[in-house]
């Protein structure tokens, strides 16, 4: 065994101590030399790994679709569902943002994001108007979640004003807060924050790449803008 070869090797590097310690060493080895069984250690490490993953915010699988009318779009999926869609300028930017926001481990995986990528491509090609994707909104605050759930009930081809949306979710008078909640929508396009307009029917704002021009393009794609 591993330790047998080492047992007699000098581990105290002082000569006189070495002589005296041989017998003690032998007794110590009887008690402590064997390491925990490999299988047992593997299980313990797997458990710790699990605890770490939870502490770090789990694993997010991500990938990028590079050819869209709006440039590269990043996608991140958790075990619960789609967690983020990003217009970030680079993969590094996206990963930094995800790590800060979710403290998650990020693992690139084409297959984990395939369903989302496929539906987005169909949408950009005009072959799909609504998405059938499970979303992970667990990390959001209740108000933002309510706003995002509210805007999801506005179908493609229609729009709503920020004030109307506030009323629809039972928070009349909170149009500004609704605007902010939409502005930090973690899953743009699929949660259609672009369908919320200013009270006068103008486009309002859009925080995705391309700003209001992207917003306008999405609304044209959906037949809600001339």
């Amino acid at each position, binding site marked *: 065994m591993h330790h047998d070869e080492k047992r007699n090797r000098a*581990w105290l590097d002082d000569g006189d101590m070495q002589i005296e310690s041989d017998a*003690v060493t032998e007794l110590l080895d*009887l008690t*402590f*030399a*064997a390491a925990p069984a490999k299988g047992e250690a593997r299980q313990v490490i797997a458990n710790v790994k699990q605890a*770490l993953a939870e502490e770090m915010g789990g694993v997010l699988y991500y990938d990028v679709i590079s050819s869209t009318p709006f440039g590269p779009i990043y996608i991140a999926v958790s075990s619960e569902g789609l967690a983020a869609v990003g217009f970030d300028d680079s993969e590094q930017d996206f990963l930094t943002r995800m790590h800060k926001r979710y403290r998650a*481990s990020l693992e690139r995986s084409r297959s984990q994001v395939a369903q989302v990528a496929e539906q987005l491509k169909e949408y950009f090609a005009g072959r799909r108007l609504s998405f059938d994707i499970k979303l992970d909104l667990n990390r959001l605050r209740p108000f933002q979640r309510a706003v995002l759930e509210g805007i999801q009930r506005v179908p493609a081809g229609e729009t709503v004003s920020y004030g109307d949306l506030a009323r629809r979710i039972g928070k009349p008078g909170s149009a500004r807060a609704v605007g902010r909640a939409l502005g930090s929508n973690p899953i743009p396009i699929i949660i259609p924050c672009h369908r919320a307009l200013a009270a006068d029917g103008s486009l309002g704002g859009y925080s995705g790449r391309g700003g209001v021009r992207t917003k306008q393009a999405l609304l044209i794609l959906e037949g809600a803008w001339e």
Partner: protein
Amino acid sequence: MINRNFNKSADQRPPFTDLLEKYGRELYAYLVRMLGNQQDAEDCLQDTYLRALGAFERTWSESNYRAWLYKIATNVARTHLQKHQRDERAAMEGEHQIMAGPQEALLHKEQVHLVVAAMARLSFRQRSAILLRKYNELTYEEIGQALDCTPETARAHVYQGIKKLKEKLGDSISAKGKSHASR
């Protein structure tokens, strides 16, 4: 699994979970030896890595991750022993799960018990230093880091610990010594 920490200064660091793959097993063995049972060792290993993660994420960098992890594990073990109101001796003298193989353990049950009892008489640092030196093969430099002392003091802990063990184990040693010499 890849854990990316994208702090600028942190880009050169290993992914945190690598530190678990690389050192988890030896740290676990150390904690089993220190605490005498597998459940406490597993709990403490988990605490060790959770604490380490916190420090790691505060953009903290370290040249010797192994020694650093041993330091955290040692502190966790000490706190664990204190918190559980069992004084260290009771923990060591109690149901110490024997590391030796089953046959060996049966054959030498008495001796193992003596060793455990004798180890329990040492200070926490002496015990820790001996186990780190002998079974985890840390250098005195690294043991010093783990125990928050100089390498010289770390060496002194080992030597004094061995000396104390020798006193406590006097009789069984002379018996063992003979059988060893006659081989």
